[in-house]
């Protein structure tokens, strides 16, 4: 819960200097979306990473909502987390192999209803796509409910440095190995 208080402090500092201090809000929202600290509990943040939220105006409501909800002791308990990879997609469901991020060890197979994928993530649902799945008890605004959250991963497109690295690697492997 220390993260929670730090976030609240961060909000206080941000508001005391005005919401034009977008960098603090960025940090605030980034921490809020951090898988390791606070799983997303709001429709706005499900399936969304801070680095793909393009508009500053889109970031603010998340922070405001968090500030409002932070009047209560909001947290997730008894959580279990997996990293999944989509193996097949059917009419109403998709199948995945799951890697246990909580306990490690062996992998699992599971099937999910397509309805569990948020609208924002539907375009990311493809064979081979990676996603996080978290389940647990959400303690939100004094209420306890069971939650299942699926968030598909977003990785930025390759930049120039990536392409440089790719070509350097090709050159290195081509020249250093003896090919027959």
């Amino acid at each position, binding site marked *: 819960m220390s993260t929670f208080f730090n976030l609240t402090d961060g909000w206080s500092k941000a508001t005391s200097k005005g919401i034009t201090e977008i960098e603090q809000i960025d940090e605030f929202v980034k921490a809020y979306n951090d898988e390791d600290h606070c799983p997303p509990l709001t429709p706005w943040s499900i399936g969304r990473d801070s680095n793909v939220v393009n508009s500053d105006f889109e970031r603010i409501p998340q922070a405001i909502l968090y500030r409002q909800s932070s009047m209560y002791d909001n947290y997730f308990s008894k959580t279990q987390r997996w990293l999944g990879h989509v193996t097949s997609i059917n009419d109403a469901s998709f199948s995945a192999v799951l890697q246990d991020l909580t306990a490690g060890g*062996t992998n699992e197979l599971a099937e999910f209803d397509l309805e569990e994928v948020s609208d924002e993530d539907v375009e990311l649902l493809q064979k081979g796509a990676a996603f996080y799945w978290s389940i647990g008890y959400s303690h939100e605004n004094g209420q306890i409910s069971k939650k299942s959250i699926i968030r598909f991963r977003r990785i930025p497109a390759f930049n120039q440095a990536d392409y440089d690295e790719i070509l350097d690697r090709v050159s290195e492997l081509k020249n250093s190995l003896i090919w027959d």
Partner: protein
Amino acid sequence: MNAPLYGEAEITLIGTGGYGESILLFLNNEDWIIIDSCVEPGNNYPASLQYLKSIGANLDKVVLVICTHWHNDHIRGISQVIKECINAQFCFSRAHDREKFLYFVSSDYQKSNYDRLNSSSLEFVDSLTELAKRSGRAITALENKILYNQGNCHVYALSPSEFTMEAFDNELAQLIPGINPNIKAIRQTPNARSVAIYVKIGEHAALLGADLEVSSNNKEGWLNILDNSLVVGNGKKASLFKISHHGSGNGYHERIFQELLHPNPVSKLTPWNKADGLPDPQMLGVYLTHTDQLYMTAPYISKSPKKRDKSIEKLIKSMNYELSEIKYKKGIISCRIKIDDIGDTWRIILRENSLKVEHD
């Protein structure tokens, strides 16, 4: 278990259930060849190296590492194998256009900067990088090619065919522009590119089927070997068979038994407990019509949820999710034979969960 005796050859199959398989060959009294790699989940150390160390073998004597294809169950840990086996050459199937091939795997590998689990080529490029550090030899596997030739022991690639690799060239041309950092690259025909292997040991021979399947086109897969191979056929039959593709129906053709194998061959396979699971019990029945020497590295494993904290189990159940564990079940089947004794037969050593399959 001890290392093979002088004059003996060995073919060992390691299976893990849903986490892959690996084969080790001991040939010409001194050389080891490792085909494919698998690891224990959570441990991540190659089972092949674990085995060699357990019998006191010298890793410097591993002369060749073969990657039959890039499926995770055949490649996990192979870069560690290349790293530790400092004298090993590395053999794999690749597109003819080397530069295009390297660009594809390098681009796929680049995704690991953002998400290691999204890169299908991680192990493969790590292997090439390890090999490059010592200016090692990268050998292309292709039908009819000899991969090892020492004394009276020879190892040949029976696949992939030229036709298959031309198709791979075309596939790469389509895959490269669409490389998407968010998803694993889905290659369409990896099993067709599997490297099936014929091992000649003195007067004995073995056929190792990798994950090769039967295609409707006799220019690729098993039909290509049966109809067009320059290595097998013409009475050159094997007495040991590593059944292809975990005993699946699409890896089977009765002509394999009729034309490439002696009657009642020692046959071994690794089960695959993902999805519907392999082999289908019906297929085991089919294999038992060809041999009464059928071995598996592990028994069938019924599907069940993973054991975890009771409160989490209860939560999963209450939310109506049905999860099934991909169980880790390791088994080792070692087969040894005297290289120069034409009358010798394979001695089978079963370890851990491996078993002989009997008629019901």
